[in-house]
Every structure is written in structure tokens, then in C-alpha cells.
């Protein structure tokens, strides 16, 4: 118990501490729910403005209660389970998407520390020693919900969608993890609180600037792909897949998927703020008793700015094709994040080593892009055909057995 990161729990657990933790959990849950409600409204409204439409306007001022009305409507709709569905998995899948999204938010530091009844309380639900790894674990687990929803529906298009989803999420997790390693290296710690504290001394210490802008951009792209947001939403490409993994869902279960998706957007914005934009760090005036509120305001403002960036992506960028998604992930982001990690590690030891690793990384990058060029120049027949054009195993087997042995050709 020597290295517990949370000062609240460092000296035994009493009923008062238990109560504080419970209150933190309930408040965080309520805040996330309200934030999701506002996020759905904000996205619809901002997208409408970008597309010269009006958007929701009936319920509440500027239509702000539209999400609530939609939620109530969905709640009272008929809940249908398809005949071909795997009932248990079908019913469990929405919760498997929702829970990781909620848990990830628990490690986000939303403010500084406050003192309640003599206890120093950090304004975040939990500060585990493995910190940011919790986020990686949860993003790994959130694949299951999408994947099993598609499979359990017992229908072709949702299954295709879930296969796409699992491939995409696994691919981008590598780039995501390597960028997090870069941040953890520069901070020297894994806990989100330490990561935020290390950036608290001013804008020049924010990881956005401190690590060069590249890890921030990689992380932004990777986490967008990880949460299946546009332009990486081939998982929900309605023109190809009817709807996506949630085609067969209705009523409250569909609402849960919707909730989880927007919760992921909010959490992803909060995570980027924590890792790269200094979290709750910012200018705070000397006001008695109210000083603790300014970090929270800074955090909310930064998160809202990033949430707008996501909406902007959706409004401005066309959806990527499946093979483009894979190519960006494997051929661009993973080598780039690995190279940048080496450069950062070199600079942390000694500037001279930093320049040496930078030269080595540039050399290796040149070789790699040359290899990609040679591979592309050999034509589509020399390498694996894209997934969509490849014959199914069934066809292959049939062709193998149907081939005339006298002609000696497989065709």
C-alpha cells in the first residue's frame, strides 16, 4: 500500500472516505449523462448549421431538450429480438459498449484538489497507479460490444459491420498505445494526475507543444477511429451495410448504443485534454473560496473545443473506404508513432542522442516508403488482393477441384 497514488486512500478507509468516494461516483455519472445529452444536441445543431439547416428547435430553448424527448420516445418503443438472434449475447451487447465508455471517464482529472472535512480529495473518480492503461484496457474491451452485437443479431450486414469494427479497432489500438507510451515517457509516470501535473506550468509544458505536434495528431486520428466516429465510420456505412452493427436493435437497446457512442466522444475529448492539453491547467485569479472552480471551467472549455473538432470532422470529411482506413493505420500511423517514440526517448536521454535517433528514423522512414512504392509498383497481382476483391475460400476450393488436370493450370 506504499505507492497508492490517491491521497484520500493512503491512510486506511473509514466511512467518511467511503461516502466521499460514493458521492464522487454518483456526481461523475450524472455529469457524464448530462454531458452526453448536451453533446447529442450540440452535434445535431452544429451539423445543421454547417449544412444550412435549422436542426432541432422545438423542445426547450434552441431545442436543447430534444435528446430527452428522443430518449423517452425510444424507451417506449417496442423491443424486438430477432428470431435468428443469440438471445443472451444480443441483450448483453449494449451494456458491453456502455460500461467501458463510463469506466474510462473515471480516470479523467476534471479539476485540482479540494479539501472536504479534512480529507484531500482529487477531482477525479479514481487515480489508479496504472492510470492511463485503464483507458487502453477499456478501449480494448469496447470492441466486444460492437463485435458481439453484430454477430448476435444473426443477420448478414450487422455481421459484416462487426468484422470491420473489430479489424479497425485492433489496428488503431497499436498507434494509440504507442502515442500513450510517448506521453508516459515524457511524464515519467502512468497516472493521469501526474500527467496533468507535469503540464501545469504553462502552455509550453503542454504535451501538445512539449512532444512536438505529431503525437497529438496521431492520437486524435487514432482515437477517432477507435470510437468509430466519422470519417472512420465504415462500421456504420449505411449505404453499404443498411445500418451497421445496430441494424437489428430497437427501443432502449438501440438508445444504449447511441448513448455509448456519444459518451465515447465526450470521453475521447476529455482524454485528449488530459494527455495533451494540460487537463484542468490554466489561468486562475486569486478569489477566496472559489479558486478550485477555475480548473474545472478550463477543463470543460477545452473538452468542449475538442468535442466541436469531432463535429467538424463529421461535417467536413468524407467517409474513408475500408482499405484506406487500414492503409492509414498500418502504413502511416504505426510507423510514424513508433519513430516519434524513438526520437522522444533519444531527446530525453541527451539532445545529441535525440538528433542521432531522428536521423536514424528519417533514414528508416525513407527505406519504408521506398518499400511501399516498390510493393505498389509490382501491381495488384503480386500482393494480397484487397479484401473486397478476394475470392471466398469456398470459391477457391471449387476452382481447385473443378480445374482440368490435363491443362495443368489452376485457372
Amino acid at each position, binding site marked *: *500500500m*506504499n*505507492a*497508492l*497514488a490517491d491521497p484520500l486512500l493512503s491512510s486506511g478507509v473509514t466511512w467518511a472516505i467511503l461516502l466521499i468516494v460514493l458521492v464522487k461516483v454518483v456526481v461523475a455519472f450524472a455529469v457524464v449523462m448530462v454531458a452526453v445529452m448536451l453533446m447529442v444536441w450540440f452535434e445535431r445543431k452544429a451539423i445543421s448549421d454547417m449544412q444550412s439547416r435549422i436542426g432541432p428547435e422545438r423542445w426547450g430553448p434552441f431545442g436543447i431538450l430534444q435528446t430527452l424527448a428522443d430518449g423517452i420516445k425510444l424507451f417506449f418503443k417496442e423491443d424486438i429480438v430477432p428470431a435468428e438472434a*443469440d438471445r443472451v*449475447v444480443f441483450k448483453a451487447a449494449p451494456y458491453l459498449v456502455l460500461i467501458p465508455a463510463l469506466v474510462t471517464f473515471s480516470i479523467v482529472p476534471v479539476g485540482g484538489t479540494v479539501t472536504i472535512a479534512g480529507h484531500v480529495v482529487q477531482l477525479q473518480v479514481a487515480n*489508479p*497507479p*496504472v492510470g492511463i*492503461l*485503464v483507458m*487502453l*484496457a477499456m*478501449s*480494448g*474491451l469496447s*470492441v*466486444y460490444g460492437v*463485435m*458481439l452485437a453484430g*454477430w448476435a443479431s444473426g443477420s448478414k450486414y450487422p*455481421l459484416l459491420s*462487426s*468484422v470491420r469494427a*473489430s*479489424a479497425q*479497432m*485492433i489496428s488503431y*489500438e497499436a498507434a494509440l*498505445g504507442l502515442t500513450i507510451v510517448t506521453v508516459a515517457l515524457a511524464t515519467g*509516470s*502512468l*497516472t493521469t494526475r501526474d500527467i496533468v501535473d507535469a503540464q501545469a506550468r504553462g502552455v509550453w509544458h503542454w504535451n501538445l507543444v512539449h512532444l512536438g505536434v505529431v503525437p497529438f495528431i496521431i492520437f486524435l486520428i487514432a482515437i477517432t477511429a477507435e470510437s468509430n466516429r466519422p470519417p472512420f465510420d465504415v462500421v456504420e456505412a449505411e449505404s453499404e451495410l443498411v445500418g451497421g452493427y445496430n441494424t437489428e436493435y430497437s427501443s432502449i437497446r438501440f438508445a444504449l448504443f447511441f448513448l455509448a457512442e456519444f459518451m465515447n466522444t465526450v470521453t475521447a475529448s476529455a482524454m485528449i485534454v488530459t494527455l495533451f492539453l494540460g487537463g484542468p491547467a490554466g489561468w486562475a485569479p486569486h478569489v477566496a473560496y472559489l479558486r478550485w472552480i477555475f480548473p474545472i471551467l478550463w477543463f470543460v472549455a477545452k473538452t468542449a473545443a475538442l468535442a466541436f473538432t469531432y463535429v467538424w470532422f463529421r461535417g467536413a470529411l468524407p467517409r474513408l473506404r475500408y482499405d484506406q482506413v487500414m492503409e492509414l493505420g498500418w502504413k502511416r500511423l504505426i510507423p510514424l508513432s513508433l519513430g516519434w517514440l524513438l526520437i522522444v526517448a533519444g531527446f530525453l536521454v541527451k539532445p545529441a542522442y535525440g538528433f542521432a535517433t531522428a536521423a536514424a528514423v528519417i533514414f528508416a522512414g525513407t527505406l519504408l516508403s521506398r518499400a511501399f512504392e516498390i510493393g505498389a509498383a509490382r501491381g495488384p*497481382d*503480386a*500482393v*494480397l488482393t484487397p479484401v473486397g476483391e478476394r475470392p471466398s475460400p469456398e470459391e477457391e476450393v471449387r476452382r481447385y477441384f473443378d480445374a482440368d488436370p490435363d491443362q*495443368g*493450370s*489452376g*485457372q
Partner: protein
Amino acid sequence: MLALTTTWPDLLVFVTAAALIVVGALGVISLRNPVHSALSLIVTLFGVALSFLEQSADFLAAVEIIVYAGAIVVLILFVIMFLGVDRHPRDEVEPLVGQRAFAAVGAIVTVGGLVFLMARAHWVTGVMSASTNGTPLASGQGEITQLGQSVFTTYLIAFEVTAALLIIAVLGAVQLARRDRESEVEQ
């Protein structure tokens, strides 16, 4: 011995983790649908992660979830879905003749070996550790530092050889999976 040296929260966590592991493992071998088996494998992995946590090995617990539950079982499910599993598999024909006898022998050898090891050896990590002269591994940051230092100093060769092995495996898989159209035509 366990009940004497541990407090009741420790015992509670241990019992929960053990129950998760055993129930999950039984599910893996007894459920008919391969997807359900893979899901109960995740339950087992969570139990293992929980018992890592109970032994103050936070980092290993996180890695257990990220690597095994988050990547490997996902890939297993991916393959099952790609191949399109029959909902009602025809299992009256046993694909491997005599597999039950081999499985029984394997289980007896494994359980016997584990009992033998547990009877002779001491606990390796956590509060009951004997390997570090009674001092438990530092949890959290300290644990990661210790792990990193031992991997990159004492066990460096083993670490690098494992990395090389994995790269060879990946290259081999790519080589096996690709079809060379030109050579097919020339045959």
C-alpha cells in the same frame, strides 16, 4: 495457511477471483457454441487479472486485460466470425480420435505438476513473497520500474529473442497467406 495470514478483504477477493477463473474455465470447455466459449474465456482472464491485483501486481493486471482480453480473444472471435460458425455444430463425429484420453492424461500431468510445485516452492510475488526476502514487490510505478529494469538488463537476451521470434512468426504468416499469382500461372 491462507486463512491465517490474510485479512478478510483479501480472502473475499481471492475467492471471487478463483470462482471467476473456475466458472470461466468450465464454461470454455462445456459450452457448445464457440463464441460463448470465447466469452467465458474472458471471464477467466478477468479472474486472473483480479488475482494479479490482489497480489499488488497492478501492471500485470492491466496487461492481462489489454493484451489477452483486449486483443487475443478479439482475434479468436474474429476468426470464428470470419469462418461463419454453424449455430448447431455437428459434434457426433469426433474430429480427433482419442482426444478425450489425451486430454485426461494432460490434465492429470498438469494438475500433478502444479501440486508438486506448490508443495515445494514459495509464493513468487505479493505479500507472501519469499523470492524478495519477505519484501513485496512495490505496486504501481515501482512495480513497472522493477519490471522494466529486469527485462532490459537481466533478461535482455531472452526478451530480444522473443521479439525476434514474434517477427519471424509474423513474416511467416504473411508469406503463407499470400498467393503468388504469377507462379500459379507458370505451373
